[in-house]
């Protein structure tokens, strides 16, 4: 099995009552649910080798080069923003407590506080400063300073899906127990249609195991709700997936919609989960028309040292003439013979309460989705 990114799986966890009591006496900073989830991701090694929030040198290297200051590939800043008023309070403390609601999530061992340029952050990570881009809009709402330092996780973040919540140590042991020497990871924020299934099964043909890893967390309006994605995959697994070579586990972190850079970030997290391969499809982690359809595949050529093998896929479609699901590489017929698995079209049908054709979506999956009053984020 591959070693985690940077060589060692980070584990910065102390669930003792003593530590939690200490945190209650410290200066408190409140975090959002997405920040709480990312504290879990740091503490349990999903973001290995990061041990906390980035210091300035790493942050600036990530923006400039898409690498940490030690040259290791890393494309998305993992940072905590604070206001000037908070900085003045933090100056008097070496450690602060990060609370989600009334729960102490982590202790932040403060090493550095620094200002940053939001426009440059947006331009480098998202390749745009347009606030029409949800990732940019998110950055622009942040406070003006960043605080960096290692964290100690005191509590696991709350989850709506404990049945599917796995940390990297657990997936690594699971893959070993399953006898999988090679595992392909699949990132998704969608309920599966036939095209997704064919991509996954095509990849699985060449490796020992398939790890479907839906991303649970803040998403944009119109995306499938988390519970819909989970129910849809449960159904697909029950009817169409072999138990000894495919498994399902969630990853809780927000979508950044950073396209190419986020594709690298997604691959790194799956490497930490123990995957040897990672599926990159059309417009991976993209939004609107901000990125070219295959930019998220091209960026992998800049990272020969990523340590996980990307598998690039073009879109699959149903060809009436071939009589099956194919892609443009293997189908010689014109578009008049094709039924495309358009996510937008499938969403529109589901919103109208219509069941998409069996050529586009498994009937069991469609039925489950249609049981929800509104399956999409409002």
């Amino acid at each position, binding site marked *: 099995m591959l*070693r985690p990114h940077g060589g060692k799986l980070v584990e910065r966890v102390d669930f003792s009552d003593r530590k939690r009591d200490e945190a209650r006496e410290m200066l408190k900073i409140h975090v959002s649910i997405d920040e709480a989830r990312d504290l879990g991701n740091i503490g349990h090694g999903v973001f290995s080798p990061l041990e906390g929030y980035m210091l300035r040198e790493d942050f*600036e290297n990530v*923006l*400039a080069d898409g690498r940490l200051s030690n040259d290791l590939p890393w494309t998305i800043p993992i940072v905590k923003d604070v206001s000037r008023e908070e900085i003045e309070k933090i100056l008097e403390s070496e450690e602060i407590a990060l609370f989600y609601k009334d729960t102490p999530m982590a202790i932040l061992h403060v090493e550095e506080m620094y200002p940053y*340029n939001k426009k440059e952050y947006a331009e480098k990570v998202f390749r745009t400063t347009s606030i029409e881009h949800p990732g940019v809009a998110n950055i622009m709402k942040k406070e003006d300073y960043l605080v960096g330092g290692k964290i100690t996780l005191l509590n696991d973040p709350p989850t709506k899906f404990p049945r599917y919540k796995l940390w990297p*140590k657990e997936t690594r042991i699971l893959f070993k*127990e399953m006898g999988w020497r090679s595992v392909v990871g699949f990132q998704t924020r969608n309920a599966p249609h036939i095209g997704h299934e064919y991509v996954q099964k095509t990849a699985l043909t060449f490796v020992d195991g398939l790890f479907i890893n839906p991303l649970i967390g803040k998403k944009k309006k119109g995306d499938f709700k988390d519970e819909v994605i989970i129910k849809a995959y449960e159904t697909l697994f029950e009817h169409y997936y072999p138990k000894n070579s495919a498994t399902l586990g969630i990853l809780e972190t927000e979508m950044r919609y950073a396209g190419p850079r986020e594709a690298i970030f997604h691959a790194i997290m799956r490497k930490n989960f123990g995957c040897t391969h990672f599926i990159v499809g059309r417009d991976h982690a993209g939004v609107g028309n901000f990125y070219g359809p295959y930019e998220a595949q091209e960026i992998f050529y800049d990272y020969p*040292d*990523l*340590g996980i093998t990307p598998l690039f896929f073009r879109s699959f479609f149903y060809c009436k003439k071939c009589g099956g699901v194919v892609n443009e590489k293997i189908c010689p017929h014109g578009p008049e013979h094709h039924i495309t698995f358009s996510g937008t079209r499938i969403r529109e049908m589901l919103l109208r309460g219509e069941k998409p054709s069996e050529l586009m979506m498994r009937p069991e999956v469609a039925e489950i989705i249609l049981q929800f009053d509104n399956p999409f984020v409002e």
Partner: protein
Amino acid sequence: MGEEKKYTTVSIPTTLFKKIEERIKGTGFTSVSSYVTYVLREIIAEDENEEEPFTKEDEERVKQRLRALGYLD
């Protein structure tokens, strides 16, 4: 903020430099430096492919949880 990339100089034989210059013609590499950087990063990454061991206690605890969740029989 974050504008400058940091570089240093490494010496290679001139004959090798010329050979690489020839090799990268018509490829996506824009300079000998970018080619050499790519190749070195690829080689360094190869050292990572070793399995990380867990302690027996860790493994047993995790396996119990995986069984309870239905991942393992």
